[in-house]
C-alpha cells in the first residue's frame, strides 16, 4: 500500500507491506537509521519519534497509520545542521554513554519540553517513564534535560 508522509519537513512516499511498522518504514524504506529498535514490546522507547510534534514510539504504529501526517526523527531534530539545545546539553553533561537509547531520549525530551518548558527534576524523571537507559543511571540524562530547558528558555527571553 502507498504511504505518503512528511518526514523532517520533506514529503516522502513509498509502497509498503500493510504490516510495516513505522520504525522499519523510517529505517529501511527511507534509510533514516538514527531511530533505533531496542525491544519488541514498546517498553524501551529507543524508537521514539515525533508525530505531528508529539512523541510516539514508532514500533507501536504502522506506517499506514501515519499516512498524511508529519514525522520528525532524530535526523530532523536540528534541521539546519546545527545541534539542538538538547543535543548540546546531552554532550555537555555526559548524558549518554553507548548512545543507543539517546535518539529516543532526545525526542521524548524535545516533546516534553514543548509541553513543559520549565520542569522540575522530578517532572523530568516522570516524563522519561517510557524510555529506558542501561548505561547512565539517568542522572546525567535528567541533568542534560534540565540544562537544555534552561538554555532554551534563556534563548527565548
Amino acid at each position: 500500500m502507498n504511504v505518503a508522509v512528511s518526514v523532517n519537513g520533506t514529503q516522502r512516499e513509498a509502497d509498503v507491506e500493510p504490516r510495516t511498522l513505522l520504525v522499519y518504514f523510517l529505517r529501511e524504506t527511507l534509510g533514516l537509521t538514527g531511530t533505533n529498535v531496542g525491544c519488541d514490546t514498546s517498553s524501551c522507547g529507543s524508537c521514539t519519534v515525533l508525530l505531528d510534534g508529539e512523541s510516539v514510539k514508532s514500533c507501536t504504529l504502522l506506517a499506514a497509520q501515519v499516512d498524511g501526517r508529519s514525522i520528525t526523527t532524530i535526523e530532523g531534530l536540528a534541521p539546519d545542521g546545527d545541534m539542538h539545545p538538547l543535543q548540546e546539553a546531552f554532550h555537555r553533561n555526559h548524558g549518554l554513554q553507548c548512545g543507543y537509547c539517546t535518539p529516543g531520549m532526545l525526542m521524548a525530551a524535545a516533546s516534553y519540553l514543548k509541553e513543559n518548558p520549565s520542569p522540575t527534576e522530578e517532572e523530568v524523571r516522570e516524563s522519561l517513564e517510557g524510555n529506558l537507559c542501561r548505561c547512565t543511571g539517568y542522572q546525567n540524562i535528567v541533568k542534560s534535560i534540565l540544562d537544555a530547558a534552561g538554555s532554551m528558555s534563556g534563548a527565548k527571553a
Partner: protein
Amino acid sequence: MATTERYIGAEVLRKEDPELVTGQANFIDNHVLPGMLWMAMVRPPYVHATVNSIDTSAATSMPGVVGVYTAADLDVGGLPFVWPITEDIKIPSHYPLTKDKIRFHGDAVAVVLAETREQALDAAETVSVDVTELPALTTMEDAMADGAPLIHEELGSNVTVHWSHGGGGDQSVFDTAPVLVQEHYHQPRLIPNAIEPRGCLASSIPSMGEFTLWTATQIPHIAKVTLSGVCGIPEEKLRVIAPDVGGGFGSKLNVYAEEALALVLARLTGRPVKWIEERSENYVATIHGRGVTHDCTLAGTEDGKILGLKFVEIADMGAYYQLLTPGIPELGGWVYMGPYAPEAYWFEFRGVLTNATPTDAYRGAGRPEATYVLERLVDAYARKIGKDPAEVRRMNLHPPFSEATASICGLNVDSGNYEPALDRALELADYERFREEQRSRRDSGDVRQIGIGLSTYIEMCGLAPSNILGALRYAAGGWDAATIRCLPTGKVVVATGTSPHGQGHETSWSQIVADGLGVTPDDITVLHGDTQVTPLGMDTYGSRSLSVGGVALHFAMEKIKEKARTIAAHELEVSEDDLEYTDNAFRVKGAPDKARTIPELAMSAWHAHDLPAGTEPNLDATAVYDPPNFTWPAGTHICVVEVDTQTGATDILRYVAVDDCGTVINPMIVEGQVHGGVAQGIAEALFEEAIYDESGNLSTSSMTQYLIPGATEIPPMMLDRTVTPSTTNPLGVKGIGEAGTIASPPAVINAVVDAVSHLGVTDVGKPASPERVWRAIRDAEGGGA
C-alpha cells in the same frame, strides 16, 4: 620523562558524542550489503526434550526463503568455551544448532535464510519439531535431586565442576571462634538487557576465501580467533569488526551461535547473511548473570573482630557453558575477604547444569556475587554482637598500604587505603542524623521505617596478568596493545586493542596521548574494534581497558619519545643527554628556546631528509603491555531507605558512593560509570529477577515483565572519590566500570533489612520487592510461624 598534564584529570567532553546525539552512529542493524539474506533462528517452545524429527518442508516453500538448515546440513564446529577451570571439569558439547536434544529455550534446531527480515521470521514459525519432552530442571535443586534426568547424558551428572580456592590461614577458627554467624543467601538470575540487542552480518569473497563479520560484540579479537576455529576459516582470512555497539555489560563478552551460523551460511550461499536479535530472543538466547546460592560462615570475636570468612557456593551454569561460564564464580573467589584482614579464608563452589540460559559474565562477573554475601554477612555479624555496622567495618578494615601486599586470598593487592572512603561516605550520608531519625521512628512505631545499609567493597579488575590467567587454566592472555602513529601534519592516530561500547575510550585515550605527546585531544583519532585496523588486542571487559589497554598507550609513547629524542638531538646538534622533555618539547638544557616538539619531529621523521644514521623514517610505535598484577579498586557505598512496613515498599532516600579507582583520567566519565553501575545494582537489589515457571518457561520473558528501572525508580546519587594510585601500572589507574554494580546491591539490601530488623527480620530476599519485604515482616511478626 616529564610530561605536562593538561588533559589527564580534566572533564574533557566526549569525542564520541556528536554522531550519537545526531542519529549518525553506525550500529549493527544499520549495516546493509547488496544481495544480503536475513537469518532467523528456529527455537522450539521446549526447554528439555529429545528431538525425534524436524520438518522444514513448509518453511522451505515459503515466499522468499532461500534455505532452511539443520545441524546435519552445516559444516560447523562446537562453540568456544575457554575456561576449563579444573582438570576434571565436565564440559558439555555445545553446537550452534542442537542435534538431538533441546536443553533450554534458546536452543535452536534450525535456521532459515530468506530475502527479507519478515520472510525469514515468518518461515521460522512454520518449522515443526517432533519431540519427547523431559522434565524441565530450571532450578539447581531440581538438577541436583536424586534421579534427576541428565541434561547432558555423556557427562554422567548435572554437577559438572567443583572448584576450591584451597583456603588461606588457619581453618580451625571456624570451629573455635567465640562467635559464628551462618547465613544462606540466594541471588537470582539476571538478564543483562543492553538496550541494543545482539546482531551480526557476515560476508565473504568466495574466490578468495575471505570473510568479514560485523558483530555487536565487546570482543572482536577473541571472536576472530575462536570463530576461525569454529567455522574452519583460516584466522588470517577472517576480519571481525565491532561497529558502534549499544551497550554490553558482559552480554556481548561472548561468542554466540548466531555469529558462527552467519559465517558458515555466508560461505554456503556466497551471499551476505544478517541476523538481528529480537528482544524476546535476547531474554532466552543471550547469557544471563548471577544465579547463585551461598552458605556463609563468619568467625569473629564478641567485640567485633572478624577472624575467618568461609563461603560455599553453588552456581547455576545453565544448559551449556558459554565462553567463560564456570570461570565467573571462580573470578569472585579472590575477593571474599573484601577490604578486611581475616586470619582465615575459604571458598569453594560447584557448578550445576540446568535447563536454562547459560550464565556468564554480567557486569562485575563473580565479584558482585561475592561482595553481596560478604557484606550481608558482615551486617548479620554486627546485628548478632549488637554493634553499629559502620563501626564493625571500621575496626576490620585492612590498614593502609602503598606497596603491593599479600592478601589472605593468595594474591597481592596493589594498594589500598580504605578508611578515608568510609569516613567520607558516612559524612555524605549524614549517617548519625539518619541513625537518630531511625531511633525516633522506631520509638514512635512509625509505619515508615528508616534503614541504612553499608557496603565496604574491594574488587579485582584489570584482567589480567597472563601468567596468572594461565595458572588459572584460562586459554588466552590478559595483555593489550596500542599503536601510535604521529602523522606529518601534527595529528596522531591511535589504534587500541580495547573495544569500547559506551565507556568513552576515544576521549580518555586521547587525553592520555595528548598529555604524553604535547598535542590536544582534538589532534588525535582513536581507532578500535576492527581486527584488520587494530590487529593486536584483547578487548573490553573486567574493567580492564584503561588499566591494561590505556597503559599500553603509555609504553607506546615511551618508544615514540625515545626515537623522537634521537632525531631532536640530531637536528639540534647536541647529545641526547643534553635534552630534556619539558613544556611539550625536547629542549636543550640551559637553552630552552632551542627545542623540537613531537609534531615537528614527526614531520622530520616522515620526510626523512636528514635522519640520524640508522634511524627508520616515520614516528610510530606499538607496545604490548602485560600487567604484572591485577588492580584492586575499593570504596564505601551507603544507601538510606524508607520502608513502608504495611506495604513492604522501599524508597531510596539517599545513595552515596565513594569510590577509589586510583588515578582518574576523566572525572566526568568515571562518575558516569558509577551512576550506571549503581543503577544496575539498585535494579538487582530491588527489581530484577529472571523467573521460570514449573514447566521451565521464562515468566519474565520481556521488558514488560522483567522490571528494568526507569528514571523515577533510580534516585539521584551523591558521589565522591578517594585516590590511592595503583602500584600495578605507571599511570596509577585501577578501573571503574564494574565498581558500582559490585558495591551497590548489598548496600541497598542491608538498608532494607536494617529498616525492619527491629521487627525481627534478618533477610528479605533479593530482589527486595514489596511483596518479599511485606512477607518477611509478616513472618517475623508471626514469630516465624
